[in-house]
């Protein structure tokens, strides 16, 4: 019985991903797209979790964990990039801030 429940939830998750793709394609502003991509990543994580329990293999959970982390890092990287228009400036600002904070201590 649980197999059927997991299968239905798997397909529901795929449906939610497909709906999110619509916003990803349409999204008038860039931020809509970033938001949709982030939310899409969360749904992919859930999809992988459900799938790995459905087929009874624990490997998928590791991938899902990796995804959850990478999704977050990629979102932050994209936004940093837009904030400073360059990754290098973003990194330099970060190290500058750390240097200032370090002086205070």
């Amino acid at each position, binding site marked *: 019985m649980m197999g059927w429940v997991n299968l239905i939830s798997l397909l529901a998750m795929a449906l939610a991903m497909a709906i999110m793709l619509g916003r990803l394609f349409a999204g008038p502003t860039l931020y809509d797209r970033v938001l949709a991509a982030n939310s*899409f990543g969360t749904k992919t994580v859930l999809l992988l979790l459900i799938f790995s329990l459905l087929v009874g293999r624990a490997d998928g959970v590791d991938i899902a964990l990796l995804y959850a982390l990478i999704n977050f890092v990629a979102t932050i990287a994209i936004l940093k990039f837009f904030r400073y228009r360059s990754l290098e400036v973003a990194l330099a600002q970060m190290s500058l801030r750390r240097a200032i904070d370090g002086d205070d201590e």
Partner: protein
Amino acid sequence: MTEFDWTQLLDYSLMAMLLAVGIAIVRLRNLFAIVMLMGVYSLISAAWFVSLDAVDVAFTEAAVGAGISTVLMLAAMLLTAREAEPVKAGRHWAALIVVSVTGAALFYAVGDMPIYGDPNSAANAYVGMDYITSTPNEIAVPNVVTAVLASYRGFDTFGETVVIFAAGLGVMLLLGLNAAKKEAGK
């Protein structure tokens, strides 16, 4: 005839999403949106790899495709325009011919491939089984792929690592990251 495997539906829906994302990447002009869609593309394809039992490939795809290459693409976009210029329709024909010929060759090659999961196929019949049976006794590492890469083929992997390291060093020297850092630190 075995029972219908319902997880096939997942494969089909993931493939449909891949197709939709691919078409959208071709159609869109906004490069930022395309970068993001490419990240999503590799997310979907990694999920598909998991469903095809290729967990190691999915791991690599997730780390490289969704993580690093998105960042690299963004860095590359600094050097280019933000919008793609429309390509003249005449150029499409040459590309279409190349793509169709490659696709036809691949489809032709599919005929020679063993059936999915065939126990008698070349990949499963010869040394593969040996590795799988002897790795737990000879090397304590549980992951067979790791054991093959780091121990049975250790010198090979060492050479590959050296090559990649040298290539990375060369790229860093060419780009002059040191100079950029000095400039930013001013």
